[in-house]
């Protein structure tokens, strides 16, 4: 049985921090696309893109899924999974910004210029750093859960 009053174990904190980081980053990108298409906000994205991230967060906090997974799965698998997720999504963002910037200046349209939002890299780099920090903390922790 999961005790909700107990302090969050490092593995559970790692899952929570990673999921938050990824979903906040995801929401930032879909908002950026929506603003770019305004007033036709949903031209390239649908409403579901905005709904599923808060839904995942709600489910995670409501059912204590982070604690549940941290209890069931060995730490090494959790650390591997969270690191892979953060590294791959960071790579996807780097590729996106690289493609946005890799256009000759003479061909840059106002729209393309807008997608040169390199700040999104900073956001995902921050999410990756948090995951790495919590992974190291989980590795060093002697407590299993």
């Amino acid at each position, binding site marked *: 049985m999961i005790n909700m009053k107990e302090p969050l174990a490092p593995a559970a904190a790692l899952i929570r921090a990673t999921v938050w980081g*990824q*979903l906040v*980053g*995801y929401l930032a*990108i*879909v908002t*950026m*696309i929506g603003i770019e298409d305004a007033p036709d906000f949903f031209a*390239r*994205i649908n409403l579901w*893109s905005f709904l599923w991230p808060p839904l995942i967060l709600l489910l995670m906090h409501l059912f204590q899924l982070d604690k*549940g*997974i941290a209890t*069931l*799965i*060995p730490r090494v*698998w*959790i650390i*591997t*999974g*969270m690191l*892979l*997720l953060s590294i*791959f*999504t960071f*790579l*996807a*963002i780097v*590729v*996106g910004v*690289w*493609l*946005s910037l*890799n*256009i*000759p200046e003479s*061909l840059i*349209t106002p*729209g*393309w210029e807008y*997608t040169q939002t390199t700040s999104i890299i900073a956001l995902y780099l921050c999410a990756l750093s948090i995951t790495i920090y919590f992974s190291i903390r989980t590795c060093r922790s002697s407590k299993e859960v």
Partner: protein
Amino acid sequence: MGNCYIFPGDDARVQRFIDKLEEREKYLEELEVKRNELWPKITDTIATCLQSIGGGLGIGATIVGIIAAVEPTQIVKTLAIGGAIVSVVGCVAICGSSVASTYSEGSEQQIIIENITDTTNAAIFEFLDLRDKPPE
């Protein structure tokens, strides 16, 4: 202020110049489509990665559940380790291939940019030729 040049339409060079400009316009539109599709594709990649890792953790939790439910014999342990390895490899493959497919957009984009440069140069060549050697 720019200069205005008027050439007769029956000269082949004029037609070639117009064709190259139209081709250039077509490639510019293609580049614009790529730009529009780029970030939604990135969000799809992120969603795919989240799903695959979430699925992998789900499989992992199921495997641990099975081990806890039945007697952990050597066969069950081997199957569990095998299942865990397959789930990790699966996550890496799904998420990695999604990132790789986004990266391959780069080469497609580069080809379009090269085509724009080529058609622009060809149009400039025809124009300079017309300007220097105008039709009689």
